[in-house]
């Protein structure tokens, strides 16, 4: 049987409500039993500009969008102008009405869905119910059913994004305090946690800058609190001196690094994976750390949880590296995350940013320095061993295929969707540090690297750890601030299969 995969693009100015419209429709479809994925493309403006979301849904799991659109919902004229070229032959354009929920009704009718389902969604939304129901009824009346959906049975699923995964993972790990300074795309985690702080008895604080944030977190962590900080690249740069301090003082801390594209301010509201190298190497001196890269919201929960586990057990910094695409896109998931309990193992004592003696006082003695350095080296080995208890990488697709795609982080979704009927295996690296032993998986294979950056930062890491080099022509790299799209990526992969 042929699987259904439909793409709906919702576009408009910031403030016209394309987000609520997308989310309401997505949730309704998810509850019906469809798999829904939507991503958000928005500019760094508060009102006006051009924002759009693409919602893709199917009767089978879906984790990405396509470049070609089935239905274009244009809340303003600009949307039609910009996206008409992406409309499939015979695709629909819905336009000419000022209210977002009008289109919710219209889409329900076109897709042959029961209006009652929409009513329930709008009730749950709460805000402006009367107005929304009136508009959507109007839209429902104005349309005809024209698309026959593949029937599905409803199942237990949840609709969530990567940032919610990070927040949930932190709460389930026993987070006490979250410190942050606002920086897109990490900011939503502040809101997620702040909203839930009283019911979970946690504290969420915004301080004067990222330097204060990480140093306050070190202070709290030294008293035994489970502390976490969150930021994007620029803020992370400011935190790196503090990161080095956690390595020296041996204070466990969890750091959420949500990537945006470019050096400096880059592109604030778009996506990229350019910060793998800073996650691995930032902070002066040599000290052990953990770097984990989730590829979906469930892994965001699980790896945040593992970050806490390692931070407490080994008193080290743990970095969770994600990006805007994973953080803000909504996924339909139907498996619950696996959570490992972590005890609070840090207790208040005498901590030092200097190399220290047995009393916690500054030391310059050669023997003490050497002993401390060797302790940190031993710790790195112990972490490596402990990491073996967790899933450090995953494989998907055709086992033992000669073609192996390698990637990390958010491209996972588009890769999973595009390799469904290709002769290839997909290897997703979850543990960047400590890096898993992948030599056996990669030796003699036609390796294809997929990353959302311009130099393919995973490739030199693979070469360092396995001695295996990935050919430049086998690197599929996207660095325009946009995520990979399934239909385009599939063509790119096909051209590299052997």
């Amino acid at each position: 049987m042929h699987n259904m995969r439909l793409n709906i693009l919702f576009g408009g100015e910031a403030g016209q409500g394309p987000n609520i419209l997308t989310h309401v429709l997505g949730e309704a479809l998810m509850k019906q039993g469809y798999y829904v994925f939507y991503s958000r493309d928005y500019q760094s403006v508060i009102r006006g500009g051009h924002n759009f979301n693409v919602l893709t849904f199917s009767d089978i799991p879906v984790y990405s969008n396509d470049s070609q659109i089935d239905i274009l919902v244009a809340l303003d004229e600009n949307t039609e102008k910009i996206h008409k070229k992406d409309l499939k032959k015979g695709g629909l354009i819905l336009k000419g009405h000022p209210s977002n929920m009008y289109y919710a009704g219209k889409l329900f009718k076109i897709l042959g869905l029961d209006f009652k389902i929409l009513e329930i969604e709008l009730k749950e939304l709460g805000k402006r119910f009367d107005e929304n129901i009136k508009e959507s009824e109007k839209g429902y009346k104005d349309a005809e059913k024209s698309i026959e959906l593949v029937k599905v049975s409803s199942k237990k699923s949840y609709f969530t994004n990567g940032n919610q995964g990070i927040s949930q993972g932190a709460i389930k790990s026993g987070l006490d305090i979250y410190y942050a300074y606002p920086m897109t795309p990490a900011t939503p985690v502040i809101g997620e946690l702040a909203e839930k702080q009283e019911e979970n008895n946690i504290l969420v604080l915004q301080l004067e800058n990222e330097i204060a944030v990480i140093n306050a977190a070190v202070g709290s962590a030294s008293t035994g609190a489970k502390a976490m900080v969150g930021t994007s690249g620029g803020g992370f740069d400011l935190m790196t001196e503090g990161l080095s301090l956690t390595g020296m003082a041996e204070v466990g801390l969890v750091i959420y690094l949500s990537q945006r594209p470019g050096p400096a301010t880059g592109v604030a509201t778009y996506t990229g994976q350019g910060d793998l190298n800073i996650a691995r190497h930032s902070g002066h001196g040599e000290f052990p750390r953990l770097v984990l890269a989730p590829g979906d919201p469930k892994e965001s929960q699980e790896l945040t949880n593992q970050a806490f586990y390692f931070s407490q057990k080994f008193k080290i910094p743990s970095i969770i590296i994600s990006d805007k695409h994973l953080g803000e896109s909504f996924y339909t998931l139907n498996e619950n995350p696996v959570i490992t309990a972590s005890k609070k193992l840090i207790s208040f004592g005498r901590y030092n940013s200097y190399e220290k003696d047995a009393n916690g006082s500054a030391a310059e003695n050669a023997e003490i320095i050497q002993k401390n350095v060797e302790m940190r080296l031993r710790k790195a080995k112990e972490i490596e061993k402990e990491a073996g208890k967790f899933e450090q990488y995953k494989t998907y697709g055709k086992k033992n295929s000669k073609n192996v795609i390698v990637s990390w982080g958010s491209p996972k979704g588009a890769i999973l969707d595009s390799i469904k009927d290709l002769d290839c295996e997909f290897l997703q690296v979850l543990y960047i540090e400590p890096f898993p032993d992948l030599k056996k998986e990669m030796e003699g294979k036609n390796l294809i690297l997929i990353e959302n950056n311009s130099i393919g930062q995973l490739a030199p890491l693979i070469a360092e750890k396995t001695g295996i080099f990935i050919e430049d022509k086998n690197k599929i790299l996207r660095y325009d601030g946009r995520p990979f799209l399934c239909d385009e990526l599939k063509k790119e992969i096909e051209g590299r299969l052997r």
Partner: protein
Amino acid sequence: MTNLSTNTKPTWCQGCYNFQILAGVKNFLEKSKIGRENIAIVTGIGCHAKIFDYINLNGINTLHGRVLPTCLGIKIGNPNLTVLGFAGDGDAYAEGMEHLIHAARYNSDIKYFVHNNQVFALTVGQPTPVTEVGFKDKTTPQGVKIYPLNPIKLMLASGASFVARVFADSKQVEYVLKEALKHKGFAFIEVLQPCLIFHPDISYGNKVYSLDKVGHDKSNFGQAWKRAQEFDYNTVKKIPLGIFYQTQKPIFEEQFPQLMNLKKNKIGWKDVKR
């Protein structure tokens, strides 16, 4: 009486005024009923920070400039702790300036001592933001050109609820620590601590006077502001010492029910079961 001595032999220069600060703090804390386990100290980087090694208390000898956010984090981690911060003038007024202004604004119950010797001493004598015009060292052969900052005025303007300045004399330090601990909220205490090697004091002597003895009203902001201007850190005419200003403002920790609960139950986050 608690013994807070350590086995570490002090490496401050002979006669260094830091010994006076150490003695004042140690004398007071050893006699006080707070209890060693209820005190946290945080030090920055510089000569002042060696105090961490000479006083047996829990805490963090943290990064240069980061004493205040570290203090704040400890206080939030366990609001039952008495948190004392020690910084140099380089720490407080150069590297960590942004934290100082915000600490005054937050008004967390932290007592912050700035050992002000008007010079970067441990890096062998460079000027800080409070060094006088004309000061010369290897890095400034043409002499300092920039007029110094007046930290007392800065703290008053930033809304600090307790602003004091003392000389590095153990009795004065003991006195001001006692007063600062009685105060609820952020206490800014500058300790004039001349560096015998790189910024030796020769002229403070009879120019200092005690605010207590001239009928200064520490609850009067206008008076405090006026007194603060008597010493501009550039030329020494008159140097008022004592508490310039003290007022009661909402305390940071008390704004959060989560922290008030910890306080009520006399626990830190470490003891919160989940």
